[in-house]
């Protein structure tokens, strides 16, 4: 253990530390600061203790948004993961089709989120939108501005359209890494198409799938831009997710204290869920 300690190294990481302090730590501490105080403007603050937290955790509005978030994440995972696997399995593995498919798959991922929202906002409008107009024309009563169910369908389809590609690309990467010999051996062993999927393709995709599920869960749990652009959280509060609620509270009503408390709780929930996923993944790796 003849390690030479060289404290000069600290100077080299100093710029990063300063940067992180300004971008992350100081804002975070500001939020913590707000969350335990009350203000009526004019920069006058009074101590509020845990009042905002108690109020938040006992408010039905918070829990309703939370449940909406969980339901939304669950639905899009239930659609995007199987659909992504299905598309990846059916993508060509060689030839000119590969770049074509990859580019087509990447397109939705390259579009900025607010543009995705705008696209679907227009696309779904029942007066001028391509989808909305024709759905109504064939007799389906579709109007996401007024009907909560239609609003949910719209943002779910939008999210599936936007993000299934990510699952596809990750699964595809897992699939192309399987050597041909595995498929040949499976033929020799007389394996059915299902058995090939169950015992060769799925085990090889397991790790990328975990990453895909993690990423999609986190992203969908923090979703803000797209539903905000499409429905603005409505009709009523039917598509008001935690992040939308947060912005409404903080910017709309300028209730800095409750908004700060909510940010912290929201942050802790995501931290907790990330930790759970991380633990599950590392345990899974250790088991191998």
């Amino acid at each position, binding site marked *: 253990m003849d390690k030479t300690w060289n404290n000069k190294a600290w100077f080299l990481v100093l710029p990063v530390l300063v940067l992180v302090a300004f971008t992350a730590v100081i804002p975070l501490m500001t939020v913590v600061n707000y969350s335990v105080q009350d203000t009526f403007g004019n920069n006058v603050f009074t101590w509020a203790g845990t009042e905002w937290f108690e109020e938040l955790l006992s408010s039905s509005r918070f829990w309703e948004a939370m449940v909406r978030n969980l339901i939304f994440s669950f639905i899009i995972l239930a659609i995007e993961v199987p659909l992504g696997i299905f598309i990846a399995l059916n993508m060509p593995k060689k030839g000119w089709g590969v770049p074509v498919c990859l580019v087509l798959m990447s397109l939705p991922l390259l579009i900025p989120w607010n543009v995705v929202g705008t696209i679907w906002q227009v696309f779904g409008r029942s007066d001028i939108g391509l989808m909305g107009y024709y759905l109504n024309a064939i007799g389906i009563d579709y109007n996401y501005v007024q009907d909560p169910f239609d609003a949910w369908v719209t943002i779910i389809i939008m999210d599936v359209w936007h993000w299934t590609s990510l699952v596809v690309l990750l699964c595809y990467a897992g699939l192309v890494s399987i*050597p041909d*010999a*595995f498929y*040949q*051996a499976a*033929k*020799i*062993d*007389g*394996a*059915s198409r299902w*058995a090939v999927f169950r*015992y*060769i393709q799925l*085990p*090889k995709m397991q790790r990328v799938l975990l990453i895909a599920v993690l990423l999609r869960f986190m992203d969908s749990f923090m979703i803000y831009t797209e539903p905000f652009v499409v429905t603005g959280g409505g009709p009523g509060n039917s598509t008001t997710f935690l992040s939308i609620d947060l912005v409404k509270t903080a910017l709309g009503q300028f209730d800095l204290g409750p908004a700060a408390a909510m940010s912290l709780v929201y942050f802790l929930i995501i931290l907790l869920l990330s930790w759970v996923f991380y633990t599950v993944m590392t345990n899974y790796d250790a088991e*191998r």
Partner: protein
Amino acid sequence: MARIDVNHVRHSYLPNPQKEADFALREVHHTFEDGGAYALLGPSGCGKTTLLNIISGLLHPSHGKLLFNGRDVTNLSTQERNIAQVFQFPVIYDTMTVYDNLAFPLRNRGVPEADVDRKVRETLEMIDLASWARKKARGLTADQKQKISLGRGLVRSDVNAILFDEPLTVIDPHMKWVLRSQLKQLHRRFGYTMVYVTHDQTEALTFADQVVVMYDGGIVQIGTPAELFERPRHTFVGYFIGSPGMNVMPVAVEGKTAMLGSQRIELPGAPKAASGAVELGIRPEYVRLGRDGMAVSVSKVEDVGRHKVVRAKLEGRDIAAVIGEDETVPAEPKVRFDPAGINIYADSWRVEMGA
């Protein structure tokens, strides 16, 4: 078990093969006898794996037919042909136990579970993994994994043939010997028809009764290890088999004499119809180094343990000779060719010698 007839099989990976060079497999016409142990030996890219995959049905040949026991199987799928094949890299089903890996091919064919259990246990004994049955397959070493790949072939006792595609590439040298002798034992005990692809001559010669030497998409010689050594039909076989390979030098033949530059070499007989580019081939083992014969200049002596390899120049050409471990190179070295080891080649193919 089955006799496998490969009838004028040609294969090209191109959709429209035009020239002879477009074919990965030029033309193979050969019968693998029932219960035989064959090795397909050749350098990389000579078409041996292509031939193997055609036999197992993973590839459909561009031309020609394949018969198992006289029945045309050319258009049958791999599964219908009932073939076992072991690949270069071990293929195991990671998430299954060793037991389930071996049971997999049987369960896929709807074999009753009682029979599956009996067969799997037998096979586990055979490949010496009985104590690992309940372990997950992914934790095993490379050679254990390869044994499982092998076991998945052996577990189906009714297979028509077992094909090996360089199965010992990833195995440690020590384990290579063990596995190879286990394979030989299995062959003796159960009489499977086995075809073994390799580019390693030691592996081919120790495994097989009949070695099929392939070169540039075709079969150049089929024979026992001794035949390949003594009477290589093609100069390629001479180079490829043996270490060091055969000495091949251009000569002019007149009757029972070959002229190598200014040297006259007595042949065991007069070659029949030696036209075209005539060459004389002699294995280093038949080159006698001593005080009489043709003068050579020795450039290097390599001691390989069992014997020494002498590298020398004869009439300006490289020549190798093998001498005993205790022998030394004389002061004015000369070489003689043992007539028993002389082969004459015309345009690279061996010509018979008359009296």
